[in-house]
C-alpha cells in the first residue's frame, strides 16, 4: 500500500494508506458486517467486505428437517425484518413442487401481509438510514409506525417478528375480526406520517447534500452485478417481479413500479435508492387498500396438506422481497425431508456491489452507501 510520489521538484514523498476495520461491531454496518477499509485520510481507496459472522447454516439445516413445514421458522430467521416475504417465497416454491392450488382468499391475505411487511421493512431501512446520516428522530418516527404494523401481525398470528404465518398451501390463521378496521385506521394515519417524514428527512437540504451524487450506481453496472429491488430500481431500471413476473395475485392490483429519477442528483445515487423506498410504501398502501376491498371469503386452511411429500423433482420460485429478488430452489427426493434447499438472497447480491460504488468516497459517504444498500446480515450470511 506504499506509494512513492515524486513531486515536481524531484523529491520523493512516501505516503502510506491506513487500513482500518469498520465492524463487525460498528454502529453503521447494520449488523455484524466487517468492512476492511483502505483509507487515505478521509478518502476511501478500497472496501473489502467480510461476511459470515452470522452464518447459521440455514440451507444445510433445512436438509435435516423431517418436514417441509419445519423449514418455515428457519426461513423467518433469514431476513428477520421481512419474514413474511421470505415465507411467501418459500411457500410458493414448495407449492410449485407439490403442484397444489390454493384458495383465493389465502392469496389475498398473503398479499396484504407481504405488503404490510414491505412497509415495515422499508420503515426500518429509512429510519436507520436517517441514523447513518445523523438524524435520530426520523428513526423513532419510523419505529412508531412499524409498531402498529407489528401489532397487526401479532393480532393475526401471535408473533411480532418471526411469524410462521404463511404455510405451505395456506395460512396458520384466518384474519381476526378487528383486523380490517384497524388496518384501515393505520392506512389513514400512515399517509400523514409519510408526508411528515418527507418534511423532516427526505427533503431536508442537509440530507439531500449528504446523499445526492453519492454512491452512484449506473443501471448497467447494477444489472451486471445482479442487483434487484430498490437497489436496481433506484438506478432507473423498471424491474419488479410483482409486475414483470406476477406471482400470487399481484396481477389483479393496480400499482406503479417506483424508479429513481435522479431528482436531486445523478440517477442511481443514494437519495434515489432512498426515495424509491419511500414511494414504494405509498404503492404498498394502494395494493393493501385494493386487496381489502376485494377480499374473497373462504377457508384459509383447506389446501394445507397433511403430509408434505412432494414427488422427486425440483422447483425454483422467486418473489419480490423488500430487498429485492428472493428465490428458493427446492429439490425433493420424494421423502418428507427436503433433499436440497438453496436461497438466492437479494441482500447478499446487493452487498457485493459495495466496493464497486464506494471507491473514492469519504468515510462519511461510506456509511450513507452501506445504509442505502439496506442489508440484513441474517440474509446475507444465512
Amino acid at each position: 500500500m506504499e506509494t512513492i510520489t515524486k513531486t515536481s521538484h524531484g523529491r520523493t514523498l512516501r505516503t502510506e494508506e491506513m487500513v482500518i476495520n469498520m465492524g463487525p461491531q460498528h454502529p453503521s454496518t447494520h449488523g455484524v458486517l466487517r468492512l476492511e477499509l483502505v483509507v487515505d485520510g478521509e478518502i476511501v481507496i478500497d472496501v473489502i467486505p467480510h461476511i459470515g459472522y452470522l452464518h447459521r447454516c440455514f440451507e444445510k439445516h433445512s436438509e435435516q428437517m423431517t418436514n417441509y413445514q419445519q423449514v418455515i421458522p428457519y426461513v423467518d430467521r433469514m431476513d428477520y425484518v421481512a419474514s413474511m416475504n421470505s415465507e411467501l417465497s418459500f411457500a410458493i416454491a414448495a407449492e410449485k413442487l407439490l403442484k397444489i392450488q390454493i384458495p383465493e382468499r389465502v392469496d389475498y391475505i398473503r398479499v396484504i401481509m407481504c405488503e404490510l411487511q414491505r412497509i415495515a421493512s422499508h420503515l426500518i431501512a429509512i429510519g436507520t438510514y436517517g441514523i447513518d446520516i445523523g438524524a435520530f428522530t426520523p428513526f423513532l418516527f419510523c419505529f412508531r409506525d412499524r409498531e402498529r404494523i407489528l401489532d397487526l401481525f401479532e393480532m393475526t398470528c401471535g408473533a411480532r417478528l418471526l411469524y410462521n404465518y404463511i404455510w405451505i398451501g395456506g395460512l396458520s390463521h384466518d384474519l381476526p375480526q378487528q383486523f380490517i378496521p384497524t388496518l384501515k385506521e393505520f392506512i389513514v394515519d400512515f399517509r400523514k406520517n409519510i408526508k411528515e417524514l418527507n418534511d423532516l428527512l427526505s427533503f431536508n437540504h442537509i440530507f439531500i447534500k449528504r446523499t445526492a451524487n453519492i454512491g452512484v450506481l449506473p443501471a448497467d453496472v447494477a444489472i451486471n452485478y445482479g442487483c434487484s429491488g430498490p437497489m436496481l430500481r433506484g438506478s432507473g431500471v423498471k424491474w419488479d417481479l410483482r409486475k414483470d413476473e406476477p406471482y400470487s395475485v399481484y396481477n389483479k392490483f393496480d400499482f406503479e413500479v417506483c424508479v429513481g429519477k435522479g431528482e436531486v442528483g445523478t440517477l442511481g445515487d443514494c437519495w434515489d435508492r432512498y426515495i424509491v423506498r419511500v414511494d414504494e410504501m405509498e404503492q404498498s398502501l394502494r395494493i393493501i387498500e385494493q386487496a381489502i376491498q376485494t377480499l374473497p371469503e373462504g377457508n384459509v386452511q383447506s389446501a394445507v396438506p397433511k403430509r408434505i411429500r412432494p414427488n422427486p423433482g425440483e422447483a425454483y420460485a422467486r418473489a419480490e422481497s423488500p430487498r429485492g429478488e428472493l428465490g428458493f430452489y427446492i429439490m425433493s427426493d420424494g421423502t418428507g425431508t427436503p433433499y436440497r434447499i438453496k436461497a438466492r438472497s437479494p441482500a447478499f447480491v446487493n452487498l457485493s456491489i459495495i466496493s464497486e460504488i464506494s471507491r473514492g468516497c469519504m468515510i462519511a459517504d461510506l456509511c450513507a452507501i452501506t445504509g442505502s444498500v439496506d442489508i440484513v446480515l441474517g440474509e446475507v450470511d444465512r
Partner: protein
Amino acid sequence: MNMLSLYDYIFYFLAFVVIGSSFVVVFSRNIIYSAFALLFTFFGVAGFYVLLSADFLAITQLLIYVGGILVLLLFGVMLTNKVVDVDIKSSTIKTLPASIISALLAGLLCGIFYVTNWYTVPTNPELLNNTTAIAIGHAFISTWILPFEVASVVLLVAMLGAVIIARREKGPEVN
C-alpha cells in the same frame, strides 16, 4: 529578606512551568510529548505577559501560538507519525558543536540581562487594570502603519503560496 508577595509566587510558579516544559520539549524522546509540552511553555509565557500587564499580548500569544501554531504542529506530527507501529524518536546528534553554540548564546543572553538598564515600574493597580489594546491599536494605525500593512501583505502572499502548493499536489503527479 522581603516577604514574597502573591505576584512573586505566581512568577516563580510560571517560571518553573516554562523552564520545566521547555526541558521536556528539548529532551523528550517522544516527539508528541515535545509538541504537547510546548502548550505549557506557551501558557507560561502568556502568564508572564499578564504579570507584566500586557494583556493584549498575552491573549494574542494564546490565540496565535496555542490556537494556531501548536495545533498546526500537532497536526503535522500526528499525520506523519504512524499511529500504531513506530514512533518517531528524536535523538541527539553533534553534541559538541551544539553545546558550544548553546553556551555562547546563554552567555550572550546573560550578558544582555546584566548590561541592560531595566525600566522598572512600581506595581500599580491602576496600570494593571488598564488595557494596552488601545495604545497598541493607535500605534499600529499611526506610527507603525507601514510595517503593519507590509506584514499583512506578507501574510497574504504566504497564504496564496500555501494554496498554490496545496493545489499542485492534486495535479497530475510524476511517478
